[in-house]
């Protein structure tokens, strides 16, 4: 392989990139746009659940239960009604997800020390959100009833009731359990996968369409030099996109960055190399720029989104699907980025993932080179 020929390729590609200002702008703006779009849209947190209250009792006891809901960040009281049909309408229209109905004899039964029930009505069409909302609601109600009972016991018998078991949970790494901290690092990996494939997917297909590839093939330049030269030129854009995405993650979404910048630089370099080679491979396989572009979108976006563990944890997938995820480099980069961002771990933990990414890059490079050589005959 000749360094001089490879550098001639790099310089030529950089000139193409510079001349095509619109594509360059797209290449830098698109990741930002996707980061903001998905970063805000992919909010998996269930909070501020729109809730209606039907308080039939209107007693101090019922009001203090409502206050418990009002005080919680998980619920947003949208209004008060005085019949069930209003609740039904609200749920049907999708204005509210939950309603709290307090029966007329609520305070009387509490004072009499009898068992008492408040009714929670949920829109179950989004079962995940509904069950999370139910969990929050139950814990508020239970909490409140424990307080009431212990107050009652205190009043009547002068003793303090203790809760049998008091489980105190402590969450590591994403201690506030905010889903953005979990989503954003993975999102960076997914976006870089897509951008890298799109950046390079047009490059060889364009040369075939223009007829310049045939010219190149008649010169001493080798397929490996073409592939490497093109990758290196687009690598600069890839690095810029990585830096921008990380900055958006840290400064716009406030995701804590607890790891080492150097580990991030090393791993993302290796990852970008492979992802860019992937686009070049598609470009060498496809007959036209259009086809290369479509193949680039589908082959990068779908697996990166579904099978990388970015949102859906790989550990929860059936074993066969889990095996498939091992073919997807984004999966390893998602693990690496989550590790660096949230856990602050270094290469002592991430080296296997890094090794895999390096292997992927080499294999795809060889495939692309071979494919170009085959196209000649």
């Amino acid at each position, binding site marked *: 392989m000749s360094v001089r020929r490879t550098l001639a390729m790099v310089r030529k590609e950089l000139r193409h990139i510079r001349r095509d200002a619109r594509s360059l702008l797209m290449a830098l703006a698109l990741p930002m746009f996707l980061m903001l779009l998905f970063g805000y849209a992919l909010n998996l947190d269930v909070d501020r659940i729109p809730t209606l209250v039907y308080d039939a009792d209107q007693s101090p006891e019922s009001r203090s239960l409502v206050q418990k809901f009002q005080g919680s960040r998980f619920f947003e009281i949208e209004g008060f009604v005085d019949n069930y049909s209003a609740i039904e309408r609200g749920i049907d229209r999708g204005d509210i997800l939950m309603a709290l109905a307090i029966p007329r004899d609520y305070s009387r039964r509490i004072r009499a020390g009898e068992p008492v029930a408040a009714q929670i009505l949920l829109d179950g069409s989004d079962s995940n959100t509904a069950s999370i909302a139910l969990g929050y609601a139950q814990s508020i109600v239970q909490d409140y009833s424990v307080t009431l009972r212990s107050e009652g016991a205190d009043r009547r018998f002068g003793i303090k009731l203790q809760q049998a078991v008091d489980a105190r949970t402590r969450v590591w790494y994403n201690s506030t359990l905010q889903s953005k901290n979990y989503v954003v690092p993975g999102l960076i990996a997914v976006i870089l996968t897509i951008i890298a494939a799109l950046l390079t997917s047009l490059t060889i297909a364009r040369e075939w369409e223009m*007829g310049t590839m045939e010219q190149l093939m008649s010169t001493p330049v080798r397929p490996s030099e073409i592939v490497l030269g093109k990758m290196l030129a687009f690598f600069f854009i890839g690095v810029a996109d990585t830096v921008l995405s990380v900055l958006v993650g840290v400064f716009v979404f406030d995701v804590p960055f607890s790891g080492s910048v150097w580990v991030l630089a090393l791993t993302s370099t290796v990852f970008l190399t492979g992802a860019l080679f992937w686009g070049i491979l598609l470009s060498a396989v496809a007959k036209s720029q259009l086809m290369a572009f479509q193949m680039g979108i589908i082959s990068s976006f779908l697996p990166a989104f579904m099978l990388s563990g970015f949102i859906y944890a790989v550990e929860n997938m059936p074993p066969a699907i889990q095996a498939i995820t091992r073919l997807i480099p984004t999966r390893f980069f998602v693990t690496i980025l989550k590790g660096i961002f949230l856990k602050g771990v270094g290469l002592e933990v991430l080296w296997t993932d890094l090794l895999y990414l390096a292997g992927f890059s080499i294999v795809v490079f060889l495939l692309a080179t071979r494919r170009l050589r085959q196209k000649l005959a």
Partner: protein
Amino acid sequence: MTPPNDNASAMEARGLVKRFGQFVAVDHVSFEIRKGEIFGFLGPNGAGKSTVIRMLCGLLTPSAGSATVAGFDVSKDPEKVRSRIGYMSQKFSLYDDLTVEENIQFFSGIYGVGKEIREERRDYVLQMAGLADRRGTTTGQLSGGWKQRLALGCAIIHEPPVLFLDEPTSGVDPIARRAFWELIYQLSEAGRTIFVSTHYMDEAEYCHRLALMYRGRIIATGVPEDLRKQLRNHPLLRLETSDALESMRVLEGQPRILHAAVFGGGLQLTVSDAAAAAGDIRRTLDANRIAVDSLNPVEPSMEDVFVALIQAEEEKEG
């Protein structure tokens, strides 16, 4: 124009065959080209000219047969061949978004032109193509003739001993074509071997030696003069009459008239015996009350030679 007196072989093809599935694009093509020769490769579109060139450049692998270019076998040593040839394809294939100078710089880089002579070569190419004061122009903005000369310049930046030009003048105006051939002569005089394909028959006259390709096979080779001699037994007559189309209708099918074609305002007739045919023609036209303005023998052009050769080939095949 006579070929240089150097008998060293620059290129040799031995029984080259290229099949694409069932289709035989090139069918046992053999030839030898001497150093410094301008070898014209002629034939209609689709005859297989480009396929031969691409095999010689190592862009296509021959299905059978072999070829040596600049001393190396194209199948066994394609890389050595590639560094010793320049190739200019049918389609303009420089980068439109790069400037003239950047294109030169790029090809200089991938051909591995040495640092010490790089500037000298660049200046030579700029001067040769007449683009010295347009070095900063975006290539896409150049007109056809300039582009073509720049493409030639990029193909010879590394001073290759052998140059392949695949229909280099298609889509270029006549003046630019003439200027282009001037350049080809200069290169030939400098000792370069030039293999040029074309379907412009008048360009055949510029070549030292010719091969006519038809349906994948070479049906004739030789210096232009020899090929013209092959037509001696098929003289050409030029006929001007009061009604060219009517003349053609009444003359066609006559025994001594092999072929009639409208040419300018009159007819061009390929005949078997000039004197006897002329008598036949005058009698026939007289009988049909068509006035003969002139009837003269003409020297066949290369185009006539090739039309006759191809017709003979088609008759052979039936």
